């Protein structure tokens, strides 16, 4: 299983040179194995995939939720404009509006010049919640996780590896932080024993104090979460757009200095490729 990090920045795309090492583009990750391919989220990072020559007749895009930093690239993803290209968009159910109609709020004037119904591709929508389904040989499990608005986390099981994707997640929301009982931990079943957990680590613990309830995690909470879920490795992602490369390097070094007995961790870097057995 190959994991390509196409966009790891949180909230909005940056453009300054001081953020280019970790990456400027917002959430998008490609997971591939054999001939199967999944695209997770359609933030501005999806643009890096537009130039790929998609030989597959079918492309599957799995959206965690519909905040702009996770869908902003959708309208610029060139396969959408390829006649007869089959594109399946999977996303969270809502009790009020369909996935198509919620996405249309962005993909329509005045925010976007082209409306969904005019796209030449063959677009198929799948509304999911606490679900399990297969795409090619991948087994995909989705569960609602803690983040404002309907938001899913994904567990993708390939031939021999498990990748869990939760770019926006605040499991420590509440008075006592993460409750130390698996039954009360958001997304626990998705992350349990994953080979790699891609997880929100937007803030430092100091920053998190004033941003509780915004739907994101401190790096420390993300590490604790990874530990409780016994993941083999956590990729800390959704970097705050105000964090420069220098600050992120400093944060990374301070984790190394302050924490010793932790699961393996890494800061997610745009453009990196991770290979799992």
């Amino acid at each position, binding site marked *: 299983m190959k994991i390509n990090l196409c966009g790891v920045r949180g909230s909005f795309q940056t453009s300054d040179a001081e953020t280019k090492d970790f990456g400027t583009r917002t959430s998008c990750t490609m997971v591939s194995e054999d001939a199967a391919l999944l695209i997770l989220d359609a933030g501005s990072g999806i643009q890096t995939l537009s130039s790929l020559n998609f030989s597959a007749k079918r492309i599957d895009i799995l959206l965690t939720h519909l905040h702009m930093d996770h869908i902003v690239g959708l309208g610029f993803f060139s396969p959408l404009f390829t006649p007869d290209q089959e594109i399946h968009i999977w996303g*969270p*159910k*809502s*009790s009020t509006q369909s996935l198509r109609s919620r996405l249309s709020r962005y993909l329509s004037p005045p925010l976007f010049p082209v409306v969904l119904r005019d796209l030449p591709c063959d677009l198929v929508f799948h509304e999911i*919640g*606490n679900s399990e389904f297969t795409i090619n040989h991948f087994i995909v499990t989705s*569960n*609602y*996780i*803690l983040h404002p608005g*309907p938001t899913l986390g994904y567990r993708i099981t390939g031939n021999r590896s498990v990748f869990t994707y939760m770019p926006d997640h605040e499991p420590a*929301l*509440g*008075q*006592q932080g993460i*409750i130390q009982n*698996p*039954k*009360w*931990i*958001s*997304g*626990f*079943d998705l992350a349990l024993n994953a080979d790699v957990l891609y997880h929100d680590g937007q803030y430092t613990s100091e920053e998190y104090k004033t941003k509780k309830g915004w739907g994101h995690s401190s790096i420390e909470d993300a590490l604790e979460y990874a530990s409780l879920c016994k993941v083999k490795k956590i990729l800390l992602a959704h970097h705050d757009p105000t964090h420069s490369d220098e600050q992120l390097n400093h944060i990374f070094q301070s984790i190394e200095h302050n924490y010793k007995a932790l699961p393996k961790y890494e800061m997610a870097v745009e453009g990196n490729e991770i290979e799992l057995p």
Partner: protein
Amino acid sequence: MPAYGIEIILSRQLADSLSLPVFITDTIGNLIFYNSPAEETLGEKFEETGEMPIAVWSVIFKPVDELDNPIPPEDLPLVKTLKNKLPYHRTFWIKSLQGNKEKIALTSYPLISNENEFLGAVAIFWKINDNEN
């Protein structure tokens, strides 16, 4: 056992932040969480009891009406919520652990997910002092 849905987890997090007693049950009435203010009423600590089957916790209270007649379980808001998946409210009296009669108001509501799945119920109540305005 798999983790609870986020609707239940969020209900507990909210209950943890309130000064009013809150009870959270699963779909058949087993008590899966109660907050600190509820511990005082129940006379038990959640950290010590953990989850409680309905048969254990439902007999702790002895609800009565204004004439001191026992209220049958099927007329209590939480039981009605579990049965009908609708919110209910009622004012009644319970005998406290010290044997005093306390007037309480209780509101219960169902937890129904985005996917219209019934997940359990929440009961929140407060003591009424008729001498207060």
